[in-house]
Structures are given as structure tokens and as C-alpha cells.
């Protein structure tokens, strides 16, 4: 594949061609809609029926809204909701800040750029299971390398994962470590899409590096920003893989997030109840993410 995109006009013109139809035909949506509609939307929304049943996979009987009542009676639900929101806000904010910072750094003229990019992206490649085991071992209260390092500085490190009030923050930190490479890659794509002319003009005007960042990079990488914010916020609300791999929601229930509560119900064979939980989680995420999405995309129009 060559690197230039300089031949767009050279498209051979077809002699007979219908002017009337839109250059952006609706049927472009069709292939995606078929696959997505049949394999995701239909079964997922059909399953909503089961949230109203007692469901063992082998039999189901209609029980109205009992599952929702049972879900809201879950003893550790409030804590789960609080943890979910802490986890999502914290990971989303840190991924944006560090992701943007790293992207700026890794598109600047520093040496070993390729190597650094690979290093930053590497955690994304490693399976969650591996990341979970590795960090759990490193965060071990007495034998872990983190507390050993702190010990050298004369600090007695805490039980990162065994202290109930600290566990969720520790997991959030690892999630940022694991996911920041993804945010960085998206930000890099955004920065790379900014025409160099702007920077040249700014340089001629004598703008400082900080001014170039604030007045060019930040506003013009807005598509990347919107994408990273939306994706990592929703991911933070829904994802529990790392929580599961590192603490299983523990100690006790201290680091449970909504999704891990639901997963535990599913594992226990409470299929109707966990479907109801998924509906609740969906409504909660939609209530936060849809306004955010609309807000971010409305701003897009002002550019």
C-alpha cells in the first residue's frame, strides 16, 4: 500500500450515470444492519422477555417484575453502583489525560518513537487474565514488588487489593495501565489527521508549543476526543473483566461493580435475575452515556 492519498480526482467517470440518487445512499447501511440486527439486536432484545421470568435455561415461568424487585433488594447494590461510577469516571478521565499526553509525545520528534509506541500499546495485547495475575502478584501486600519498592523508600505499602476501601482504586489504576494504549492509538490517529499546514502557520506566527497544543491540537483532535471519552466511559461502566480477574469483587463485596454483581448472578444460575440486572444496567448506562454523546456531538457542529 502506498502512502499518499493524492489521486482522488482520477476516478474514471462512467458515461451513463444517474444524477438523481444521493451520493450517500441509504443502502450503505444495509449490510451492517443485517448482520447487527439479526445476530445482536434480535436475540438481545428478545431476551428481555426472560427478565420477567424465572429461568433455569431448561424451563421458564412468567413471574412479572419479581426479578427487578429482587435485583433492587440485592444487599450490596448501592455499593456496586457507587463503585461502578467511581471506576468509570476515574478510568475514563485518566485514559483521556494520559492518552492525549502520550499521543502528543509520541507524534512529536522524539527518538525511539516506534519503540515507545509499542511499549505503551503492549498492555492492550496481553490477555486480561495475564494482566490480572501479574498485577495481583505485584500488589501482594508483603511479597509484591510495589510494596517492596516502597519499603526501600521507608514506606510501608498498604494491601492494595486486600484493603476494602482501596481495592477498587487499585483495579482502576490497572485498567488505566491496560487501556491507555488504546486511547493513545486513537489520539495518535486524530493528531495525524490534522493537516500540517496549521502547525506551519502557527510556527511562523511564533506560537509556543503549549499554544500550538491548546489552539490547534486540542480542538482539531476533537473527533478522537469524543471517541475516546464515549468508548472508555461506556467501557468503564460495563466492563468487569479486570475486577473479576483481580479481586472477584472482593474482599467480600468491597470492589463489586454492577456488572460483576450481575455476572455472579448469572454464574449462580439465576438467569432471569441476571437478565433483569442487565436491563437495569443498560438503562443506567443509557441515562448517562446518551446525553454525554449528544452533548459531545452537538459541539462538533460549532467547529
Amino acid at each position, binding site marked *: 500500500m502506498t502512502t499518499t492519498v493524492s489521486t482522488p480526482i482520477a476516478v474514471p467517470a462512467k458515461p451513463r450515470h444517474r444524477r438523481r440518487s444521493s451520493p450517500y445512499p441509504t443502502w450503505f447501511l444495509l449490510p451492517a444492519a443485517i448482520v447487527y440486527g439479526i445476530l445482536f439486536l434480535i436475540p438481545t432484545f428478545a431476551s428481555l422477555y426472560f427478565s420477567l421470568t*424465572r429461568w*433455569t*435455561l*431448561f*424451563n421458564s*415461568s412468567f413471574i412479572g417484575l*419479581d426479578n427487578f424487585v*429482587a435485583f433492587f433488594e440485592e*444487599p450490596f447494590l448501592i455499593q456496586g453502583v457507587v463503585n461502578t461510577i467511581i471506576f468509570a469516571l476515574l478510568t475514563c478521565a485518566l485514559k483521556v489525560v494520559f492518552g492525549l499526553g502520550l499521543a502528543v509525545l509520541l507524534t512529536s520528534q522524539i527518538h525511539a518513537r516506534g519503540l515507545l509506541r509499542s511499549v505503551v500499546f503492549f498492555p492492550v495485547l496481553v490477555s486480561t487474565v495475564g494482566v490480572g495475575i501479574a498485577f*495481583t502478584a505485584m*500488589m*501482594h*501486600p*508483603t*511479597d*509484591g514488588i510495589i510494596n517492596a519498592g516502597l519499603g526501600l523508600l521507608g514506606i510501608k505499602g498498604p*494491601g492494595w*487489593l*486486600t484493603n*476494602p476501601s482501596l481495592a477498587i482504586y487499585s483495579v482502576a489504576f490497572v485498567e488505566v495501565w491496560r487501556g491507555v494504549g488504546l486511547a493513545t492509538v486513537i489520539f495518535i490517529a486524530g493528531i495525524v489527521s490534522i493537516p500540517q499546514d496549521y502547525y506551519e502557520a502557527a510556527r511562523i506566527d511564533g506560537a509556543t508549543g503549549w499554544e500550538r497544543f491548546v489552539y490547534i491540537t486540542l480542538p482539531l483532535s476533537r473527533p478522537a476526543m469524543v471517541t475516546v471519552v464515549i468508548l472508555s466511559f461506556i467501557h468503564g461502566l460495563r466492563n468487569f473483566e479486570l475486577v473479576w480477574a483481580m479481586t*472477584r*469483587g*472482593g*474482599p*467480600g*463485596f*468491597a470492589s463489586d461493580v454492577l456488572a460483576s454483581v450481575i455476572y*455472579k*448472578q*448469572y*454464574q*449462580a*444460575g*439465576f438467569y*432471569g*435475575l441476571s437478565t433483569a440486572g442487565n436491563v437495569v444496567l443498560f438503562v443506567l448506562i443509557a441515562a448517562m452515556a446518551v446525553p454525554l454523546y449528544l452533548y459531545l456531538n452537538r459541539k462538533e457542529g460549532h467547529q
Partner: protein
Amino acid sequence: MTRSNFPAVLLGGTAVGLLALGAGAASAQDTVNLTLLIDNSADTVALTEQLVADFEARNPNIDIEIETRPGGGEGDNIVKTRLATGQMTDIFLYNSGSLLQALAPSQTLVPLTDQPFLDRVLDSFESTVTSGGDVYGVPVQTAMGGGILYNRDIYEELDLEIPMTWDAFMANNATIAEAGYVPVIQTYRDTWTSQLFVLADFYNVLAEEPDFAERYTANEAKYATSDAALEGFRHLAEVHEAGYMNEDFGAATYDDGLRMLSTGEGAHYPMLTFAIAAIEATYPENLDSVGFFAQPGSDPEINGLTTWMPAALYVPKTTSHPEEAMAFLDFVASVDGCNAITEAVGATGPYLVEGCDLPSDVPAATADMLPYFEEDGRTAPALEFLSPVKGPTLEQLTVEVGSGIRSPEDAAALYDQDVERQAQQLGLEGW
């Protein structure tokens, strides 16, 4: 639905895997291919491979392919999903007791009640794989005990005796702590290990309240309101308050626990006896340092072992080769089957098939366990083999009690709530 004679799993009902067509058709003239789904623990894989190899040597026309699945809750889901969607292998391995009941056996499994090989399976096991009057499985491996694995070297060094009461156990712990060893190993990184003090106390619960299981199933007896049942939770709290646990109990793993026990860092590890096989695999040179005793109760005259039944092999109704599958079950429930298992993973307890004897040189901990089985009235099945009611959050609650986050009474009350929800979700009578 038409089914041809290659592995049902590969084909998956009406979903004919075109990719599989070529491969399957060529191999099968007279050979019958069976598939077998087992969990992925090292012991299970090793012993199943041995069973299959010995069986195939005797039945050259039957070929069994082993598939593995994860264990725990994820494994439960896979088994249920495959049964519910008609995608189960010809034979599969799964727990006996309350977990089996959740598979709707009468709908999904082939009853074995008329099979002659059932006569060789001990009644004590049969009752745990019975549903609605029909028997559905044959045992793989041996009965297990839940109690305290202990380090014999430490006991010898400090001149301690096997405790017959909980107080004597705590007195031993005090001596052990003074000598600088860890008295009680706890490993809450693997949350399931935290439940043992509660679950293994069930012999003592039954000794005081013989009808606890029936009343528990009927929504009458509760952990929070039964003094005998609360004891297990209290024991856990006592051990924590006395500071008898290893310092890193919150972060230690089951593997760490086995290491500490076998190498003499710690003296007691409440555990199921299947751990003996794991010690044999990882710390073979320390195997003889490990002994076993039942979790003691309050009365020295009443001392016995809470027992667990092994997993069983089942045949789903969707199999296209019931005869060949039965032939394999017949083999597993025979002396040759037991011998294959002993050869693969050693003997960790008494077999549940008539005529199966243990070799003379069993590990010390296994030898410690056998007397309980030989005397009348010194064993009682764990609650999960007497009642389908079992809440999923027990392990989180016992972690909290053992970490000093929650009081035993609170935890028992929360567990009762959890159990109620489980019974409602399963649609049990009277909840």
C-alpha cells in the same frame, strides 16, 4: 432432526458444520466416535485420559475424544448452556448433589436405573445422583473429607495431639503460635477456600440437630437462628481475632496454602482432601509431612467427618450412541476403572464402587481419613448433598468474617437472605 454417526458436538444439531463434513465421514466405518466433556483441572484430565486409554484398549471399535471446559461457575454455565441447546457431548462429567439437580435431570439426562452396573455403585453415592426416583450418574474418583490438613512435623516437634474438640484445637494453635509457626493458613485470594470452617462443620451441626437438612430445605431452619449452624462462622471469627492466620491471608492463593502447609510454614489448613493429590503433584517430597483430621466440635465424644461425594459421569438424552456411552460408564464403575484412576492420580480416599480397594501405600493424609469411613456413624455428608438449597455468596461472606470485616451473626443472616433468593430463583417449594 437427522443425526449421522460422527461427533454430535461438532455437528451441533441442525447446524451442520460444513467444515466438519469431510473430516468426519472418512474415519468412521465401524468405529463409533464418542465425545466426553470434562473440567480442565490437571487431575481430572490425567485420570480421564487413563480411563479412556484403558477403555479403548478393551473396546477397539469405540473412540472417545476428550473436550475440556473451565470449572467453577463458568463451567456450570457451559454445561447448562450446552444441555439446554442440545449441544452436549455423548458423555459428560459434572458434580453430584445440589448442582446436578439444577440440570433438570429428568428432562435432559438418560436414567441409568435399569443398568446392571448400578448394582456395583454404593448406595451412599447413588442417593446424591438421584432425582425423581431415577439414578443418573456413576462416580469418578473417591469420596472426600472436609476438615483440617495439618503438618505432622510441627505436631511431632511440639508434641501435640490430634484435637478432639474445638477448644483443644485452639489450645494447639496457641502452642503453635508461640513456637513461631503460622497456626491456621487462610488463602482468600481463592475465595472458595474460605468456606471450609463453615462447610466442614456440618457433621457437628447434624450431631446436634439431626433434622437440620430437612428443615433447611423446607425453609424452617436458618443459619442465623441455629446455634449449631452458627458455630462454623464463629470459629472463623475466633481464629481471626486470635491472630492465628498467616499475615498475607487476604492475598494468599490456594497454591500458597499448600506450599505453606507442606513445607512446614503453617500447621493447619482447613481444606478438602482432594488437596492431597495436588500436594503429591507439586510437593511430592513433603507428602508424608501432611496429615488430616476432622474439624472438631464441642463434645469430645462426638467426633466425625463431613464428607463430599466426587463428580459423576452422565449421558445426555441427545446422544446418538447411548449403548456405547453406557459401555464406558460400565467400565468406569468397575474395579478396572478404579485401578485406572489410582494409576493416574493415586488414591485420595475410599472408592464408591464395590470391590475397589485402595493400594497399601496410600499417602499419610489419606490413611488418616480412612478410619472415619470404617467406623459407623463417624461420617456425615456435606449439606449440599442433602439439600438443593445453597447460596452463591457464602465464599464472599466467609472472606468477610475471616478478615474481620463482618460479624459471624451478620454474615449468617446475610447468607440466609442469599439462600432464600437462590431457592426462589430455582422455584423450590415453600419459598
